[in-house]
């Protein structure tokens, strides 16, 4: 009896200390956000291929949830995505992020599905390779699929940061379906694209990146070894396309020099595989005239040169091109901004013009306008010629909850 009550007191004591520890170190904060977007895409020209449509009303839902504790040094993060569109292939859902993260002074560990961005240039994102591109979601390639990974980051005092990635699973790229625009004459079913590796999507891949900054310089050096994110297209004598994901080694370098109103940017990669070795680079600058006439207006001018040794087989069709653009930010209460750009092929007549504008409405709405115009596309362009009738306007409005 005596013994039991002692145990009982001991139990009370421990539960008290445990509860105390919980209130202090384990204070949990939750956060839930939801964005619902209505979108309308209108393709101006008559379709090039049979079955393609002109009008694409669409809806997207983006829920986000995060749970933080240990003063924010530990967290669980989730971002989901669902789009419903007229094109069956563009109707898709994804777990953009679902990972646990723990940070402690010099290191940080993330386990789960995550998005990672590398690079500095605007018109093309060469070194950014960790995540598969969500190719049906947007034309600019900035939307990505969640990538399963273990990421370990170690930050040193004087030698920058070291990132190590273990990537246990590969995700295939989705291409537009029959009704969709921005596709090839043959509808590519993502399941028909195979792997060079016998382990297929379960090939265990790895990547590494070192990044640092000294004064005006920000530098990153990276290496990736594993299933490529871009499928490689080859042709047989009958003109049939054979596409597969090669095993690649890709070394990347990104550099930015920030000097007053100038940003000098450089990105390059060298990719090697059994079927293909190539080099590609983007080099450019951005100059911003800020607070023009003291009314807050910023006008940035951008110019970039793009080179890709693959020539016409480059999936993004940017082999030897120049990009010019201007970024206008009004710095008003509604965060109105406009990005206007044009890419011109130096060896042919092909040009792509684009406008992206956005503005907040009230406190919880946002409107976006996008236009992409394919102009004078050279019929000999292997990839781009398929898109010559695919100039489009896109309007979207989002509500945030």
């Amino acid at each position, binding site marked *: 009896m005596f013994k039991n009550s002692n145990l009982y007191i001991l139990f009370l004591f421990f539960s008290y200390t445990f509860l105390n520890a919980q209130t202090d170190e384990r204070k949990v904060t939750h956060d839930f*956000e939801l*964005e619902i977007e209505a979108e309308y895409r209108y393709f101006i020209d008559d379709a090039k291929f049979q079955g393609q449509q002109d009008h694409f009303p669409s809806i997207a839902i983006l829920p986000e949830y*995060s749970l933080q504790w240990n*003063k*924010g040094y530990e*967290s669980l*993060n989730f971002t989901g995505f669902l789009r419903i569109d007229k094109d069956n292939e563009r109707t898709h859902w994804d777990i953009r992020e679902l990972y646990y*993260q723990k*940070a402690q*002074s*010099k290191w*940080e560990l993330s386990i789960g599905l995550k*998005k*990672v*961005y590398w*690079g*500095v240039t605007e018109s093309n994102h060469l070194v950014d390779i960790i995540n598969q591109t969500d190719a049906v979601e947007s034309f600019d390639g*900035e939307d*990505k699929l969640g990538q399963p990974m273990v990421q370990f*980051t170690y*930050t040193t*005092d004087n030698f920058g*940061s070291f990132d190590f990635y273990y990537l246990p699973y590969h995700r295939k790229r989705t291409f537009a379906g029959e009704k969709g625009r921005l596709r090839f004459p043959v509808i590519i079913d993502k399941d028909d694209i195979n792997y060079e590796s016998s382990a297929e999507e379960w090939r265990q891949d790895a990547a590494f990146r070192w*990044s640092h*900054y000294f004064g005006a310089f*920000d530098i990153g050096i990276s290496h990736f070894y594993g299933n490529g994110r871009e499928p490689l297209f080859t042709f047989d004598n009958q003109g049939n396309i054979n596409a597969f994901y090669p095993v690649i080694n890709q070394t990347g370098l990104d550099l*930015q020099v*920030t000097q*007053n*109103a*100038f*940003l000098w940017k450089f990105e390059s990669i060298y990719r090697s595989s059994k079927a293909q070795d190539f080099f590609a680079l983007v080099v450019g600058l951005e100059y*911003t005239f*800020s*607070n023009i006439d*003291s009314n*807050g207006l*910023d006008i940035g001018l951008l110019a970039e040169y793009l080179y890709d040794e693959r020539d016409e087989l480059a999936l993004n069709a940017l082999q030897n091109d120049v990009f010019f653009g201007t970024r206008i930010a009004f*710095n*008003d*209460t*509604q*965060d109105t901004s406009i990005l206007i750009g044009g890419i011109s092929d130096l060896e042919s007549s092909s040009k792509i013009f684009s406008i992206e504008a956005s503005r*907040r409405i009230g*406190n*919880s709405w*946002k409107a976006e306008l996008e236009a992409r115009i394919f102009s004078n596309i050279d019929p000999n362009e292997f990839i781009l010629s398929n898109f010559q009738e695919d100039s489009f306007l896109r309007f979207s409005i*989002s509500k*945030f*909850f």
Partner: protein
Amino acid sequence: MKTIILTLTLLSTIGLFAQSAEDRGLEIAKAAENADLGFKSSTVELKMTLKNKNGQTSERLLTTKTLELTEDGDKSLIVFNSPKDVKGTSTLTFTHKIGADDQWLFLPSIKRVKRISSNNKSGPFVGSEFAYEDLSSQEVEKYAYKFLNENGNLLNVEQDPVDPKSGYTRRIVTYNKDKGYRIEKVEFYDRKNSLLKTLTYSGYKLYKNKFWRAASFNMVNHQSNKETLLQFSDYNFGVDLAEEDFTQVALKRAGN
């Protein structure tokens, strides 16, 4: 001979007492800096209310972390919590006593960290009446000083920005010498030397028995009749932040 010595003594005595306005101004700025030394690190929640000339308002919520550095300017990390379309957008700033600040921006939708130019000092911070230079760490080296007058416990000092990219010809800063040289008011004169804005501080509270922090900053633009009110809450000086909490890795973590 005697008269000469006497005159010399007299002159040097006057010289000793009549400290130049420049020296007195600098001395006050240094006294204010010294009074705020040793806070090490802090976090604070900030509500920004923007009011246009018709009285319509819009709000932003931010969390700010600051790390004090003595040999160079402070480091700060700002995270936007609202409006929701920019939630998670964050900036990391390393201020320097001399030369341009280093600044990075995190864009949460594409997870991109972008080094940005800190050239745009005079531009408005997120559409507010505060310019970037009004919100950056106030280092003594960034101005030339001139003491103007004394009004009871209040000292008025003119400050001329060293950086030609500043949007101001001068600021007139009112210090309260009895309250740790805290700033009560700042008047900003534009490049044409006409009064542009007035910033008033109110709701001061003393933290850790040493650091005065105002609960609100109200900036009134006399030329556009717009106003921005900053309201600070949950000041925390016990967070014990370190250099590792002010890296690009920490910037990405904060914005997620």
